[in-house]
């Protein structure tokens, strides 16, 4: 038992952090929100290996590596990277497990290489296709069938300006059979895990930013971080994040076990709550500036609120946690 990242895993996270810091995501998020679908960063992430983490080795992937995937998504969350990344990774799981080698061979190597951006709809759990306008493929999975889907009408706007959500209709049928529902369940659970990792990363970034702000911003003749009320708000945020993180890694390690669905749900509940608390405190401590769309951390605050109810609402996940008989 060794429940901390090993050196290689830490290095992978640090590499992504460095890449994303150099990229300067705030400007990129704003461009993405404005409709710019440039793929430079997507390609760089692929080169770093992010998309191989959900692709089987026979299709040029690294095999499914849930811990590394959490490491990556934590960093992507920390930098609020926009685009259908979770959707693409979940789609990779769906395509990899759907028991259709030809379909897998057609898309998985491209996903692994960063050449295919994929969005996804699964009506009961993921209602609309994120950024379908940016995708090479949008999957619609329903019962025993997988379809390629087409946007129908215009996107719905989210509080997160970098998220455009498209209603879709079915186009060509891509696969069918009893393996599909199992594949869809696996894809969903992995998407939930990835979303949870993103939320912890988003929360952590908001905490770090707010701590720096509280150290420097002065009111009433002192740094606001001297006030006990501010201290206690931030201590609560840290506590929430510190206990969400092990749930997310613990869930990653239960991949393949019967507990995986329950564990990713527990992780999502805790990550969602911790990140939301981080966002509320970030807003309250920053005051008006945190409330403006031109201040970068507000992009993180909005994304947290959006992901809070994406990939299953907290209530749905709490129900899944308790649904397991024991």
């Amino acid at each position: 038992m060794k429940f901390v990242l090993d050196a290689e895993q830490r290095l992978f996270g640090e590499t992504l952090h460095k890449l994303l810091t150099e990229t300067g995501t705030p400007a990129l998020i704003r461009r993405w929100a404005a409709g710019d679908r440039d793929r430079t960063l997507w390609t760089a992430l692929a080169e770093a290996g992010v998309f191989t983490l959900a692709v089987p080795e026979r299709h040029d992937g690294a095999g499914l590596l849930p811990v590394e995937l959490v490491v990556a998504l934590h960093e992507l969350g920390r930098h609020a990277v926009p685009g259908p990344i979770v959707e693409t990774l979940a789609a990779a799981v769906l395509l990899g497990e759907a028991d259709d080698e030809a379909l897998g061979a057609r898309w998985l190597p491209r996903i692994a290489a960063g050449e295919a951006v994929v969005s996804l709809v699964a009506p009961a759990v993921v209602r609309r296709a994120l950024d379908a306008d940016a995708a090479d493929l949008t999957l619609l999975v329903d019962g025993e069938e997988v379809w390629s889907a087409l946007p129908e009408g215009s996107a719905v706007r989210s509080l997160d300006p970098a998220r455009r959500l498209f209603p879709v209709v079915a186009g060509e049928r891509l696969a069918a059979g009893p393996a599909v529902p199992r594949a869809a369940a696996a894809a969903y659970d992995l998407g939930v895990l990835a979303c949870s990792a993103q939320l912890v990363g988003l929360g952590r970034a908001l905490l770090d930013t707010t701590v720096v702000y509280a150290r420097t911003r002065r009111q009433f003749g002192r740094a606001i971080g001297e006030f006990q009320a501010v201290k206690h708000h931030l201590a609560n945020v840290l506590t929430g994040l510190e206990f969400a993180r092990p749930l997310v890694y613990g869930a990653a390690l239960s991949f393949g076990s019967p507990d995986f669905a329950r564990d990713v749900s527990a992780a999502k509940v805790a990550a969602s709550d911790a990140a939301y608390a981080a966002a509320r405190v970030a807003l309250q401590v920053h005051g008006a500036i945190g409330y403006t769309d031109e201040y970068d951390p507000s992009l993180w605050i909005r994304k947290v609120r959006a992901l809070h109810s994406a990939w299953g609402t907290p209530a749905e996940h709490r129900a899944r946690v308790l649904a397991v008989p024991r």
Partner: protein
Amino acid sequence: MDLDLSPVEPFQAEVRAWLRRNVPATPLPSLETEAGFTAHRAWERALGAERLSAVSWPEAYGGRGASPLEWLVFEEEYYAAGAPGRVSQNGINLLAPTLFAHGTTEQLERVLPPMAAGEVIWAQAWSEPGAGSDLAALRATATRVDGGWRLNGQKTWSSRAAFADRAFGLFRSDPAAERHRGLTYLMFPLDAEGVTVRPIGRLDGRPAFAELFLDDVFVPDRDVIGEPGQGWAVAMSTAGNERGLTLRSPGRFLAATDRLLALWREHGADPLLRDRVADAWIKARAYRLKGFETISRTDDIGAEASVNKVFWSELDVELHETALDVLGPDAELEGDWLEGYVFSLAGPIYAGTNEIQRNVIAERVLGLPRERRVGG
């Protein structure tokens, strides 16, 4: 002790009937957009023509001379009818009470009627980049010149300023004086020479406020409220008012929690959310009854206004969070509840953060010792 509302029922019936006839069938576009602002301004004119924009003002200034109880009942009817948000609220709820307390008759006669008529829409200009909650740290200046003052400096978080006509705020008229001293309360036009308005988007991107850059903006003496140098004392009467009932009338929350209850029922009355829906509904009623208590009292509520501010601002966030949870996976999508949620998030921050309000409650209502340092 009684809660007999029958004396105000005729007024209530008249207001209800007028609203039923006049409230737009489809909601106006958001007042934080240019088109929405124009539509809301037109609505203010319609209210003003009926003397319903500021019912508690004397008739001479465009009001109805309504009692506080009539005002509360007006607000209940107004929000229950789903009437538009009040684009004129900065003027009516923040500036006007200051004018009634400190303005000259000339100022009242000149400023109030066009405000009531919806002809002049006001923005507030309190904060500066270095002076948010700590308003006494203001640095923008008013310099004495012949016949008036020259304003210089920067204001920020000026709500409504993206589209409004005039603004009011505090300026440092004695550069040697520190903090609360040497401030002057002034009104100025937003289209004056030397004023640059830079709209700022709020969380949902809408320009709900603006930065104001002031470069030698001339303001005549008649637009000073109260004595020069006494701005802090003048402003504090407005601040107290803001934390009391007028900025967020009980009617707003009664209507919002009724809508929440309806939304919850439409979505299947999920028992998981039942307690939170009930709590919001109960708290809105508590706020209503507290309002009746406040207007029944003969003493000054003073620092107790902070109790109201903490309560309504947190109720507003909670009820909108509950609504978003009712919406479930659609919570992130643009819509009235999301806009209401974004609006609610400002509540615990502005008009004195809730942290500061809790200090005020603890020190000035409960009598706990002040920290032995500046401020707090």
